[in-house]
């Protein structure tokens, strides 16, 4: 089973641009490096972003994602490499001459100006006639549903309202590319969810390419058309959200996105469409339905998501892909339950089970001896 066969069958017309081979990227980042003294913030990053994408740069603090965003905005200039936006080399163009706008993490609303004047700020610099400025500001404020607060000062607004003013201000100049630095970071959970969908609606409506920086993987998963995971100044994987989750290409991504159980082992057999792996923690062999194409006896990690593991009191009949253990922790979450199962090697495995029945009577609980099993297509073998 190849990687892309996990996604639905799409006809060439509806194929997203980033999957079309001949598509011209809208933003081209070519071998960008950024040094701050001895510290390499961004290390030889190349990335193509296509028109109308909502691309998420995901990573922890210090991963280089913000530096990359600031280079796109023009606040930092790359030590080497090129940034091409809509066919024009922008690597050393100052921010005020770029067709790019940014929404700042702190929102950076001008505290001495009203909401209206904040949004009008960029348009006034273009020297547009006054009535035109007024019209476009009003339209933009209506779109973010803040028309009634136009005369207020930023300090009189709630966090969510400020966020929308910042969004309106960065969109009003109709940039070719909108950069958003942790756009939802300062909002509470409920507002964050609402705003996520609002962002997606606006992006869809205006057809502007968005690049979002975030440390929140859930946020990236819901918002993004594609995600680029960054670590230590390097993009470790670029993929669509479900692909990123189901087919991580390395340990860092597997652990960073969602929860995962990782088993270290060595390859026993490796064929074109199947492989078996021996792991010290697991009684049976792990059988996967795809080849790894590596040297025999190579050390690998097998990643299995907690929701893909079955948990039961009965021993499974299959030869491979099972292990037994004792439940050491149970967390009832309503829609699902989380179990931690201690294997004989004392490794803990995380398993989640949906609570499909209202009352299953024979509920699994602490110290129960259980058998864990999974399908051949549930695990991912990671060589790095």
């Amino acid at each position: 089973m190849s990687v892309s066969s996990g996604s639905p069958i799409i006809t060439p017309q509806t194929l997203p641009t980033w999957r079309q081979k001949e598509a011209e990227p809208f933003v081209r980042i070519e071998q960008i490096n950024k040094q701050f003294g001895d510290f390499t913030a961004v290390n030889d990053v190349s990335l193509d972003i296509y028109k109308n994408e909502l691309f998420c740069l995901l990573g922890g603090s210090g991963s280089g994602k913000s530096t990359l965003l600031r280079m796109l905005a023009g606040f930092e200039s790359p030590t080497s490499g090129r940034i091409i936006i809509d066919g024009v080399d922008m690597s050393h163009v100052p921010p005020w001459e770029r067709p790019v706008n940014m929404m700042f993490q702190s929102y950076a609303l001008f505290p001495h100006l009203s909401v209206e004047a904040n949004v009008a700020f960029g348009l006034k610099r273009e020297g547009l006639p006054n009535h035109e400025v007024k019209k476009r500001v009003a339209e933009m404020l209506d779109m973010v549903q803040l028309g009634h607060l136009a005369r207020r000062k930023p300090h009189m607004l709630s966090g969510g309202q400020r966020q929308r003013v910042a969004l309106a201000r960065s969109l009003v100049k109709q940039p070719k590319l909108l950069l958003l630095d942790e756009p939802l970071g300062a909002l509470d959970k409920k507002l964050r969810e609402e705003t996520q969908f609002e962002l997606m609606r606006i992006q869809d409506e205006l057809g502007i390419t968005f690049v979002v920086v975030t440390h929140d993987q859930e946020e990236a998963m819901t918002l993004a058309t594609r995600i680029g995971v960054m670590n230590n100044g390097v993009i470790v994987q670029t993929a669509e959200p479900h692909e990123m989750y189901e087919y991580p290409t390395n340990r860092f991504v597997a652990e960073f996105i969602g929860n995962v159980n990782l088993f270290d082992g060595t390859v026993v057999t490796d064929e074109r469409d199947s492989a078996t792996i021996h792991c010290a923690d697991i009684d049976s062999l792990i059988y996967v339905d795809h080849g790894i194409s590596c040297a025999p006896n190579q050390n690998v990690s097998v990643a299995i998501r907690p929701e893909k593991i079955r948990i039961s009191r009965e021993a499974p009949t299959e030869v491979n892909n099972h292990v037994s253990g004792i439940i050491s922790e149970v967390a009832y979450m309503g829609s699902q339950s989380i179990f931690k199962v201690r294997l004989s090697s004392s490794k803990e495995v995380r398993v989640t089970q949906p609570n499909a029945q209202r009352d299953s009577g024979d509920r699994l609980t602490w110290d129960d001896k259980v058998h864990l099993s999974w399908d051949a297509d549930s695990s991912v073998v990671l060589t790095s």
Partner: protein
Amino acid sequence: MMTPPASVEAPRPTLIQRFHRLSLGRWLVILIPMLWLAAFFFIPFLVVFKISLSEAMIAVPPYSPLLEWDPDSAFATLRVTFGNYLFLFESRFYLDAYLSSLRIAAVSTFFTLLIGFPIAYLIARSGPTSRTVLLSLVILPFWTSFLLRVYAWMALLKKNGLVNDILMSVGLIDEPLQILQTDFAVYLGIVYTYLPFMILPLYTQLEKMDMSLVEAALDLGTKPWRAFCLVTLPLAKPGIIAGCLLVFIPAVGEFVIPSLLGGSDTLMIGRVLWDEFFLNRDWPLASAVAIVMLIVLVGPIMFMRNGNKEAV
């Protein structure tokens, strides 16, 4: 200005209503500074005002009493004269002194701002360690006596002082310049002395400014200089106003600097006041000079305070 939402549009309580609502504890908190102001500002002001309404005479103290007790009639006569004030306005000399003081103070304040702003900006944007060092350098001159520092300037600026020596040795001038005893020396002295009072409030204001505001302005298509005028300057306004007041007000009444560095033609109200008080022993006239100076200063203070309210 903003319009508050309809729900909070209750009539604003008057000052008296607000006083009634205060609890005892709050009263005490207000009372202590009030007493302080009364003891050290308002009562001395009244004393000076009282003296300004009397006439100079050779006596101890050297002015006529306000109330004259007549032992025969058992009545006290109130003797008030506005002659001192009238005298101030009749003579061109005093008007010139006021105008000249205001001019010298205004020009000095302007240059203090011009020099102080970049320094404050630099300190506010530097790293935490160098910031501490730079700030202590700003405050360091206060460790030596102010008078001593003015004398040092006299030594530097005199005919065969260091400044003239250097200018001569590099061949810029052939004979020593007369720097001391000019208005220039007074400007120099005031700017030098009051620079920390400008830098510190400016620094406090600039330090709390979010740098991403400037970046946002650049991002929205503003060139750096315009971004400075449209964002940094308006946000620094409270600091600019505070700094200007801290420099302007004492500079108007400055006495030591014009006396030591200025020439005989450098007319400043502080010197006039000193002369009236100590040379002429005309306490009532000196008091009138002081009261008028206070009134002259109230104008710009109120003006700047209003500006400050808008900025916040």
